[in-house]
């Protein structure tokens, strides 16, 4: 096979993958509104994804807040703009760094987990067993997980952002003798609803992408146990790429509305 054929083949496979993912997405929306609703499983997934990722998100957020402030301080000092630190940190974290870092962490933790779990259920015929047991496995496994990631990610981002700003305030308090009250006053003065609404909206899409790709890769897992690893791995890779694409689109759209 020459290089041109290989490129054509890869492109064809890419288009097939896009088509299958689109079909998977349309099936999700179709099943989402059809009863019965798997409320218990949905709440279990929310607990698993939200509660069990919270510590990781908070620790990462705290460190980002610390490091970001420590790294920015010397430059701001040079220009005599240290007083801008709370505004700069809060806007950067709320608008961009918080959501994308939290989403990437969740893609690694939750997305790969979903891919591996559903993949292993597929190769060990647990999904078939579920269907035989009178359960729609797509609704029980896929819809609940996608919905849970979509709902949980904004909450995780909220916690991550709050802890990151607290980490920044701690550095400012220790290094610049800025009181917490003054720091947070400045944070809230500089933040506007136009910072919060688009970013919250985008985190729903991030969560949806994490759940969707993880479920798609796991649910369609093939090639035995090797396929499970591949499903988990590709869930993370594809989700990470998709997150940046969504982020770009979100920033683009936000700029149109808020200029």
């Amino acid at each position, binding site marked *: 096979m020459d290089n041109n054929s290989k490129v054509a083949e890869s492109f064809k496979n890419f288009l097939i993958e896009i088509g299958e993912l689109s079909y998977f997405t349309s099936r999700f929306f179709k099943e989402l509104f059809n009863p019965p609703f798997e409320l218990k499983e949905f709440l279990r997934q929310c607990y698993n994804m939200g509660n069990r990722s919270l510590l990781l998100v908070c620790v990462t957020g705290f460190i980002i807040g610390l490091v970001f402030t420590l790294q920015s301080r010397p430059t701001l000092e040079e220009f005599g703009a240290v007083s801008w630190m709370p505004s700069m940190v809060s806007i950067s974290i709320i608008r961009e760094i918080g959501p994308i870092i939290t989403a990437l962490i969740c893609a690694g933790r939750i997305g790969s987990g979903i891919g591996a779990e559903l993949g292993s259920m597929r190769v*060990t015929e647990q999904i078939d067993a579920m269907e*035989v047991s009178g359960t729609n496995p797509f609704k029980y496994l896929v819809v609940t997980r996608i919905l849970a990631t979509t709902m949980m990610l904004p909450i995780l981002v909220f916690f991550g952002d709050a802890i990151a700003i607290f980490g920044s305030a701690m550095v400012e308090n220790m290094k610049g003798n800025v009181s917490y009250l003054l720091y947070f006053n400045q944070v809230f003065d500089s933040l506007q609803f136009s910072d919060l609404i688009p970013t919250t909206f985008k985190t729903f899409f991030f969560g949806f992408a994490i759940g969707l790709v993880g479920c798609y890769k796991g649910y369609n897992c093939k090639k035995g146990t090797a396929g499970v690893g591949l499903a988990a791995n590709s869930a993370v890779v594809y989700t990470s790429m998709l997150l940046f694409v969504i982020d770009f689109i979100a920033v683009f759209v936000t700029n149109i509305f808020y200029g």
Partner: protein
Amino acid sequence: MVSPMNNKPIIEIKNLRKSFGDNHVLEGFNMALYEGENLVIMGKSGSGKSVMIKCLIGLEEPDSGTITVMGKNINQLEHWELDELRTEIGFLFQGSALYDSMSVRENLEFPLRRHTKKFGIIEDTTPLVMEALENVGLEHAIDLMPSELSGGMKRRIALARTLILQPKIILYDEPTTGLDPITSKEIILLMMSIQKKYNTSSIIITHDVDCARVIANRMILLIDNINYAEGTFEKLSASEDPKIKAFFK
């Protein structure tokens, strides 16, 4: 022994064809299962036995042919009708297929809570779960997780999960594969006792000649994508046809 002549077929497959791309797995497969009968289907790996059994329960869609289960053509059933029919068909998966994230109790409760049309909404499932576990001799394992069970125990629990809906038909997909000879024998004896107790009809897909010898009322050899030979174990094992002989060496 069950005589097919005196019975109505409970499952009938006519001219079943199934392909995956260029791979023609089944090319006109026919069979009938009679009430109370144990039918063993043998064939080489990749000969389409598992595909056939999955078509039978609606997990795979055949390319053509008809599959009639208890008088219903499963290809023409609505999804809810198929679900209702599935309460009468137990399926023992090759790898047991226990849900990893659920305990043994939850594994057994799962089909009970889902197939509500057959039993209604059951508040306390414990008596039914215990009865199913007693049947397979594993009452003590009720609160264990699948990861804490041995291969043989998993197979028994899977059998208990199959039995809990009190099906009329049980489909066994290689029930003794991957088990040591002693555990295999225990599983075979268990299958026989279940058949006796509940008067089920069974299709058993296996490579295990010893299993076939003990349990089969009738056998079908799936060779070259069709039902190549059919008869009792004694008849087939005495055959001079080299393709048939190869199975009994």
